[in-house]
């Protein structure tokens, strides 16, 4: 090294090598996993799906940029987490929701549920779900106006004629339970196929269970989520539904109905597994999944709302710090419990 070495080298503590993982890459993987459900939502709900997705994604990203500017922090939109929140929020909205309300949902999700706590990583609750629940509670009518998929006017007319509103399967079950008549929804393998492919009324992203499972497998392969939460969650719902089905066959729907209807697949695979708001350890994730399953079925069976997935997940989000505290691994060289 003849000349006086003037270049300055980077100096830091160890380690100097890295696995190459990055938050941006993880968020990109989640977006890729959501693409199948996205395309199907366009297919089933036409312009309305396109409108809602664009409004939500753009709304979330712009809100995040504004908040970061106001807080004088670095512009954090490049980690794509706002895009993921926007997509997931859009997936939880009924097709006919006005854009203005969707924007309110974005502002609530990003500004209040996430940036107010300081940005990614600090929010205790899942932003997209807080947005959805806030909308559900503030605009109950608009949030429960459903339309049948493959509606002929979905690509031509920008606003649908009101006549074509229908109730979601879970909605019909809930009204039957409330007025304790026998539930009107029939369940054969054709309806199962429809639920699987998504040919049923509901939120634009939750309809097709198959597309969501496909996305979930991609995430599992990319190690962005682990199997613990989805399996525990869906397993608990299945067992609980089976018990109810056996106890009162006429008042309760079969297990597969509960698995494929409503927001369970979307919630269990994408919302509950949100890293920031779910427990750290595998053991904690199992407890989290079981808890979500129980709460979902309690609300579906006895609660006021037809769908309990959103409430179940944010309730379990609130318990996550306690679960983390309780499920710490045994330190190498220490007996359990001794600090």
């Amino acid at each position: 090294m003849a000349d006086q070495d003037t270049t300055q080298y980077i100096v830091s503590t160890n380690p100097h090598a890295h696995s190459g993982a990055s938050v941006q890459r993880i968020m990109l993987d989640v977006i890729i996993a959501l693409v199948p459900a996205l395309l199907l939502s366009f297919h089933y709900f036409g312009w309305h799906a396109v409108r809602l997705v664009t409004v939500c994604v753009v709304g979330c990203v712009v809100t995040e940029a504004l908040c970061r500017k106001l807080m004088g922090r670095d512009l954090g939109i490049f980690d794509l987490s706002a895009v993921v929140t926007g997509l997931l929020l859009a997936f939880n909205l009924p097709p006919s929701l006005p854009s203005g309300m969707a924007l309110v949902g974005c502002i609530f999700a990003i500004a209040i549920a996430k940036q107010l706590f300081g940005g990614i990583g600090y929010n205790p609750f899942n932003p997209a779900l807080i947005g959805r629940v806030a909308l559900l509670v503030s605009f109950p009518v608009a949030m429960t106006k459903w339309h049948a998929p493959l509606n002929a006017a979905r690509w031509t007319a920008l606003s649908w004629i009101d006549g074509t509103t229908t109730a979601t399967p879970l909605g019909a079950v809930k009204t039957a339970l409330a007025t304790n008549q026998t539930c009107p929804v029939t369940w054969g393998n054709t309806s199962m196929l429809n639920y699987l492919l998504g040919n049923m009324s509901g939120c634009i992203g939750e309809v097709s269970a198959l597309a969501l499972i496909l996305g979930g497998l991609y995430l599992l392969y990319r190690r962005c989520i682990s199997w613990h939460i989805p399996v525990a969650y869906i397993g608990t719902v299945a067992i609980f539904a089976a018990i109810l089905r056996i106890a009162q066959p006429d008042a309760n729907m079969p297990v597969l109905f509960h698995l494929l209807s409503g927001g369970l697949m979307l919630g269990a695979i994408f919302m509950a597994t949100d890293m920031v708001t779910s427990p750290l350890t595998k053991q904690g994730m199992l407890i989290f999944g079981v808890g979500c399953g129980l709460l979902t079925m309690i609300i579906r069976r006895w609660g006021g709302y037809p769908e309990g997935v959103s409430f179940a997940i944010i309730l379990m989000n609130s318990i996550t710090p306690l679960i983390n505290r309780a499920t710490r691994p045994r330190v190498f060289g220490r007996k359990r419990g001794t600090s």
Partner: protein
Amino acid sequence: MDINTILITAGAIGGVGLVCGTALALAAKFLAVKEDPRVEAMEEILPGANCGGCGFAGCADYAKAIINDGAAINLCAPGGAEVLDAIAKAMGIEASVEEKKVAVVMCAGDSDKAPRKHLYNGVADCTAAAAVAGGDKVCRYGCLGYGSCANVCPVGAIEIKKGVAIVHPELCISCGACVSACPRNLIKMVPISRTIHVLCSSKDKGPVVKKACQVGCIGCRMCVKLAGDAFEMDGFLARRNYDIPVENEGIVEKCPGKCIIKRGDSEDPAPAKPETAPEQTEGEASETKREG
């Protein structure tokens, strides 16, 4: 409203009060816990800022220490003279009043004058930076400018300007938190009336200092010759003896190392409170400062 309804109401409520009162009196007698009244009195006198300047965990802790273990009564810096007199009167002993002291950072090597050795990439905190390869400044003794002292200062009197910490004397409440926060012990408590300082702490020889900083003390002993015993040499480093005022102010211009300065009223007005984190210049390695 005949008379007996009034009597009955008063009697009813009075009765309930009586029953509860007696129950509590009995409980208080059996479960009494001795409490020293003087400690509570002392707590009232102390300002209650819990700044820890006295070295105890808070005012309550300091009060207990004064009463039980006879701790020194002039440790409460923020309280200043009034608190000192009040404690002295309460304790019935004579109090010694001292002149107010302010913190001064004994280094002026900012990013223009003192080059960096390497691109430090890690937690933006002086102690952390000093632990990685001995700090990222060529000068081994200089201020690293990552703001450990500024974060600790309860009143935000320390500002980081171009990589060097500067204490604004008029804001300093002399609690001394910054003195222990600096990993390189550059901050000294100096009587507020003294305004001439040797802003360097490098014990290296002249040529080494010259390579490390443009405003370093090269140990030429000029100040000792000119201003007598107001300065004293500590190896190759000139240190200010603050007990003796400096008569010949000319030393400030004559110092060849340009590290002796006069800082009466600080050159630039103190900001109200440093709002944003030190801005991250592109050139420097990505600092990991917690914003907000």
